[in-house]
């Protein structure tokens, strides 16, 4: 019952097979279903792998992620206290933006400004959080930026290009300079008229090395199969000899794990 076996395999695959090691952008997206189980998986995966994690959590509270993390075998409280995890709790700190004196820029400064043009304060927060420490204590492995999620930034008034610029700068710093990884969740509303979200989703897809797409089943809700996961490996700049690098699995979310199986092979129907 190891949690999220296939997503583990996919992450390990990315790190092993694509030349150059880490320094990759993994895009999580969900359509007609809730893909947050992937976020919980990657958070616990990287914490267990001893990486320094900066988690920009805009959707849920710290205690929510902590409770799910404990089911997956990590304690966010301990990780935060020992400095492994830098946690930006969007729900709580957004209130600070309004009630604090405007002394220093707040990462969520854009909430306060009428015409916020960019997410530079948020980028500066990430850069500071994943800065290498020189004091010689046990160094963590590669830095990781995790964002849950980017679509909410569009709802909060930022344009798609501003969010793409934020991720661009994070890629330059976290992926290229620090050889770390980025994992970000974007929702696919399926609405072709939502141009901003489509630009964000497609723009990020072109920059990603791995795309994990959780979709609801076309036939509707099912108790035993919660959805299907499409995995697409991309190499944005190196040619690959084989192009067929896409897989589809179906999954069921259980209390402490996610089980994956080939299409039509759910234990419930066999």
């Amino acid at each position, binding site marked *: 019952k190891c949690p999220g076996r296939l997503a583990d395999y996919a992450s390990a695959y990315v790190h092993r097979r694509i030349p150059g090691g880490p320094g990759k952008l993994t895009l999580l997206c969900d359509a007609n279903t809730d893909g947050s189980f992937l976020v919980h998986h990657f958070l616990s995966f990287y914490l267990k792998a001893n990486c320094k994690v900066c988690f920009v959590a805009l959707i849920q509270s710290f205690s929510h992620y902590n409770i799910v993390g404990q089911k997956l075998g990590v304690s966010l409280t301990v990780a935060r206290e020992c400095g492994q995890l830098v946690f930006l709790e969007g729900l709580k700190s957004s209130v600070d933006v309004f009630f604090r004196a405007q002394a220093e820029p707040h990462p969520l400064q854009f909430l306060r400004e009428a015409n916020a043009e960019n997410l530079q304060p948020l980028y500066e927060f990430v850069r500071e959080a994943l800065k290498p420490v020189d004091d010689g204590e046990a160094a963590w492995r590669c830095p990781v930026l995790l964002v849950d999620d980017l679509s909410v930034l569009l709802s909060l008034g930022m344009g798609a290009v501003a969010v793409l610029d934020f991720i661009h*700068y994070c890629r330059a710093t976290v992926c*290229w300079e620090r050889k770390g990884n980025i994992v970000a969740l974007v929702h696919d509303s399926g609405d072709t008229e939502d141009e901003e979200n489509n630009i964000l989703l497609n723009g990020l897809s072109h920059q990603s090395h791995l795309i994990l797409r959780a979709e609801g089943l076309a036939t509707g809700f099912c108790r035993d199969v919660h959805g299907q996961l499409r995995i697409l490996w991309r190499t944005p*700049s*190196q*040619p690959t*000899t084989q192009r067929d690098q896409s897989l589809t699995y179906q999954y069921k979310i259980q209390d402490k794990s996610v089980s994956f199986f080939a299409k039509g092979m759910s234990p419930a129907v066999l």
Partner: protein
Amino acid sequence: VTPSEGARGGTGRQLEMESVLALRGLVLLRDSVEWEGRSLLKALIKKAALGGEQVHILGCEVSEEEFRAGFDSSVNSRLVYYDLFRDPLNWAQTGEALPGGPLGALQAMCERTDPGPVTVALDSLSWLLLRLPCAALCQALCAMSRRHACRGGSLAAEQLCVLGLLHRELHGPGPMGALSSLAQTEVTLSGTAGQASAHILCRRPRQRPTLETLWFSVLPDLSLDLQGGPPLESQPHPDPHTPQVDPASHLTFNLHLSKREREAKDSLTLPFQFSSEKQQALLRPGPGPATSRIFYEPDTFDDLDPEDPDGDLDV
């Protein structure tokens, strides 16, 4: 594409690709999430560099290190790289960023090209199109070719090639149309069954536009390998030896009519079908079995009053 054509077409295709690549002007490489175009862009850059041209690259989407990966040192030394990846919007304020932002960087590239054959690669045009007004970008592209033409004399316009990587899903029909109208060649990337294809639309002056499809792959050393067509096993074709099964056989009821039964059915007139024969038959009162009679025996309480048939009712 039959196999024999593929074998013959090897050199033919190579020559066609050569003629395509010999085109100058704006070349749009339109890729998608599934079929990426950067490796083709790098293959074309390698070809231009090995052909002795100057190659200028505006790199926005990937780091210079990642872009140069795969080129050998002879090619790498010929590339002039403008790095817009590290700090395109000057957030770091280190003074190292290219002045003037993305538009300034693009214009600076034009200034620095020497006369003679030159290839300019924009990685990517989509990145620029999302951040610059479409009109400004189109003007900059036109200015680039004009300036090159002015500098080098009458033939110089033919010696500038601008390769622009464009991500199809990111732009609406307006900007795409504007860039299409400026482009001399559009290469649209797609593929089937693991094999990439390029649909090449060429607009040569004073000639009709031509559209051709090439199947290719980019090898790890960034050279282009052209194939005749998609691998045969991917092409579905019906098996001529499969017998057609008649679903109406082996039934417990009869769905077929014999000839006599069919004739009888066709000659039958339906009861409510009003034909002229029927009309005549109704108008002509016929004797004998056609008429019917009613026999009535009144009993003692019946009062047959022809004038008031209801007279016997006590109402």
